[in-house]
């Protein structure tokens, strides 16, 4: 048994004497016998070696050797070694939320830099210091739009991640809000249907770029129409694509959110991830989450503090813009280290590399008999294919050949059982792509 307790028996006794009690038991006298645990049947402690061995074996029960062509919003990008090396410094790792700015300038300045990087990446005016993940960030954006417009309806494009849509519905099911969804046509937003539903009760239109099917779009026209109706536009974006793609800021989008996992975070079976959010400066006071601001100290020196705290739960309690307290500061730190080391030119190149490899994969996969790469809209690094058989069966068979072949759309869309989305990141080599195509061809030849 070990429990990281420093004090020796002797010290404990000295302390009890100072307190004026005879035993530790006396310190628990407010907990009466009627409060005692009915059981506390836990395993005995183990040595560090035994615990580490247990987990080493457990990790082997996961298949981490599959070559991933699966994405769906969560991507296998290369993370430079310097990212984990720096973020695991104890000075960052074991600090709390920076409530005392004088002894937290490290975290605060890094978060200010993170916010600035998110702003230049999206061409937005102000970012917060992070939210939990891409899905909950989109929910927070919807709540923010309700607060700003005081309207009750959200129009959501069918190209938005089905996972995010489920989250939105969960959080608002007990609230007086209405969701309308428009279906995607030829891979992109159905403007006609969307405009027909846009009215004076619409708080916001939610779009995603690239959308869940991989299609990329310019939403400037939707933004104009939405603004004319007094509604906001929320866009969920995939950060790496912004090395190339038209930014939310350039489309005059009002609130941007996204999943920041691809900015230097491991896949980690779903978390921790990084929800980011940026908006226009005029909406800063309606934004949820912590915001780090620049100021000066009593000697006129530049420094950083948590600011606009009157929005937050620890000051505002039930009138706060959100209940969020702990966010994901360390993941934000990871991502600012990543964005710094990738750099301005590296970021552009990285996006182009993803595009090129995906286009190469498209051209190879398209040649397989019975497989059709959907080309109704341009894509970035993820695209939809139509298969002659149920995609979930194809994916299952591909696992046997060492590939996570893609994500079958039938999982979330009725009637799309023969479709799947495939992603090709910069990590996929020509050889892997060719082997993938070969395996896919063979798998499709197998009769049941």
């Amino acid at each position, binding site marked *: 048994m070990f*429990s990281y307790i420093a004090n020796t028996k002797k010290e404990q006794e000295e302390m009890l004497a100072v307190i004026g009690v005879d035993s530790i038991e006396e310190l628990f006298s407010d907990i009466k016998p009627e409060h005692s645990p009915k059981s506390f049947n836990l395993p005995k402690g183990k040595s560090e070696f035994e615990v580490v061995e247990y987990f080493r074996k457990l990790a082997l029960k996961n298949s981490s050797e599959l070559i991933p062509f699966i994405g769906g919003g969560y991507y296998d990008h290369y993370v430079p070694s310097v990212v984990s090396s720096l973020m695991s410094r104890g000075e960052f790792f074991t600090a709390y939320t920076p409530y005392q700015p004088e*002894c937290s300038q490290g975290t605060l300045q890094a978060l200010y830099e993170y916010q600035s990087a998110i702003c230049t990446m999206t061409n937005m005016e102000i970012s917060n210091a992070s939210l939990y993940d891409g899905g909950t960030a989109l929910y927070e954006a919807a709540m923010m739009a309700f607060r700003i417009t005081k309207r009750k309806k959200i129009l959501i494009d069918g190209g938005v991640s089905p996972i995010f849509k489920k989250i939105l519905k969960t959080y608002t099911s007990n609230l007086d809000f209405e969701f309308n969804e428009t279906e995607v046509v030829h891979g992109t937003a159905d403007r006609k249907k969307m405009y027909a539903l846009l009215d004076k009760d619409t708080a916001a239109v939610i779009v995603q770029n690239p959308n869940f099917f991989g299609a990329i779009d310019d939403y400037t026209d939707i933004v104009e129409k939405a603004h004319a109706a007094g509604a906001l536009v929320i866009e969920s974006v995939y950060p790496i694509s912004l090395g190339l793609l038209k930014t939310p800021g350039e489309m005059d989008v009002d609130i941007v959110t996204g999943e920041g996992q691809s900015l230097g975070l491991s896949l980690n079976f779903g978390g921790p991830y990084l929800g980011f959010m940026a908006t226009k400066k005029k909406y800063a006071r309606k934004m949820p989450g912590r915001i780090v601001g620049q100021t000066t100290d009593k000697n006129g020196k530049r420094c950083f503090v948590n600011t606009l705290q009157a929005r937050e739960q620890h000051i505002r309690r039930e009138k706060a813009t959100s*209940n969020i307290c702990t966010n994901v500061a*360390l993941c934000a730190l990871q991502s600012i280290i990543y964005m710094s080391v990738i750099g301005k030119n590296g970021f552009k190149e990285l996006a182009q590399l993803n595009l090129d490899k995906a286009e190469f994969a498209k051209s190879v996969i398209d040649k397989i008999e019975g497989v059709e790469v959907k080309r109704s809209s341009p894509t970035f690094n993820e695209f939809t294919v139509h298969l002659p058989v149920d995609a979930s069966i194809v994916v299952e068979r591909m696992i046997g050949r060492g590939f996570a072949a893609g994500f079958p759309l039938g999982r979330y869309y009725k009637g799309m059982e023969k479709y799947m989305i495939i992603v090709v990141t910069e990590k996929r080599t020509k050889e892997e792509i060719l082997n993938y195509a070969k395996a896919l061809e063979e798998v499709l030849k197998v009769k049941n």
Partner: protein
Amino acid sequence: MELIFEKSVEGRRGFLNPCLDVDVKASIPSHLKRAKDCQFPQVSELDVVRHFTNLSKMNYSVDANFYPLGSCTMKYNPRFTESIACMKGFTDVHPLLPQLKKGELLTQGSLEVLYEMDRLLCEITAMDSFTMQPLAGAHGELTGLMMMAAYHKAKGNNKKYIIVPDSSHGTNPATAAIAGYEIISINSDKTGVMDIEELKSKLSDEVAGLMLTCPNTHGIFNSDIKKISEMIHAVDGLMYYDGANLNAVLGRCRPGDIGFDVMHVNLHKTFATPHGGGGPGSGPVGVNKKLIPFLPISRVIKNSSGKYELDYDYPESIGYVASFYGNFSIILRAYAYILYLGKQGLIETSNNAVLNANYLKERLKERFELAYDRICMHESVFSASRQVENGVHATDIAKFLIDKGCHPPTIYFPLTVKEAIMIEPTETESKKAMDEFVDAMFEADDLSRKNPKEFADLPKTTPVSRPDEVKAARELNANYFAE
């Protein structure tokens, strides 16, 4: 210190992308392209390493400093859990894998972690089932409140109010409001616990439930807790246990045994996962049988052949509260911590957390006004009221402590105590570390009487001193690139 953007030099590189090994140079239509370049810095890898290394030196941390931040349980974060969390077999697993046909077979290791952690937390708290999805404590609160709402809806109950004590964390009322409830606040009585008479007078059939930390933020365990839960249950209200202070009662008392129906656990407090300068946290939510049907999906189950799988078939579930299965690598660390400590280690943890808190309280009360002079649990609350008589406030004492190399306690919280100084040493601190802290506090008290004006110049040892927070809000600058 310069910003990373200010160190940027046109053309400098810090990293080389993988090479393009395919013979394709693709392009997209120009109207879909960004026109304005993204201004990430142009720096070398060494620039990045120096920048963030030097930034890190401007932080106080548990690794370097005593960190008695009340209510935050800043205990030592064991290193071995880091090496486990970094195992490739855990870090490289795509979260959509188990959602593929037979894909659960590819992720048995990770699913086992989630399943077994659920079992352990149930035994620790006397709940019947946990969801690992909530990504932080406040997120757990919201998950719990949404389940409470679903419960009342299913029963056709017409509920409008959530009761919170005035000593509660700000997240409690904020969560209840976001979940669609109105708040009833109950004052503390003279002994530092919720005023039971006031509770009686404000209780009605429209009360959906009560949110409580126990021990509360005054560090006091409410001996009337069973009576309170009976009162709430009598109106078919539900008892929500905010697990922020669970570190005080491991093996001593389990929320499920004393009438709580739903709770969250802050893994980043009680179970020693690093706080990271403000997250990621993890806030699993446990429920008793009443609320099991409403748990979020997916849920991890063990099938008849002993394999773990995801189950989505719960028609009354509130749905998805997070994209996947929770902050997996945080859960993994906490699970490893529990296995390492085991039953006796967990009991020792609470024993020593409470011993340390009482020791500090007894030593400090000689010079500082103790809000409630009685045995405390894991933390105690003082007031700087005696020092205020000389014009020295809680924040001044905090700045003094920074110069002594100690992270200040939580100040100005709970709101129930004026000039509050809330101190939680945790079990991992030694008597010596606490004695040094007491010495520093006494020195602050000495100075408050001898030369109170000196506090205005503090701290002197830090890179910056007394930031102008009003200016930060008034002349908002949160983006280096803002025009």
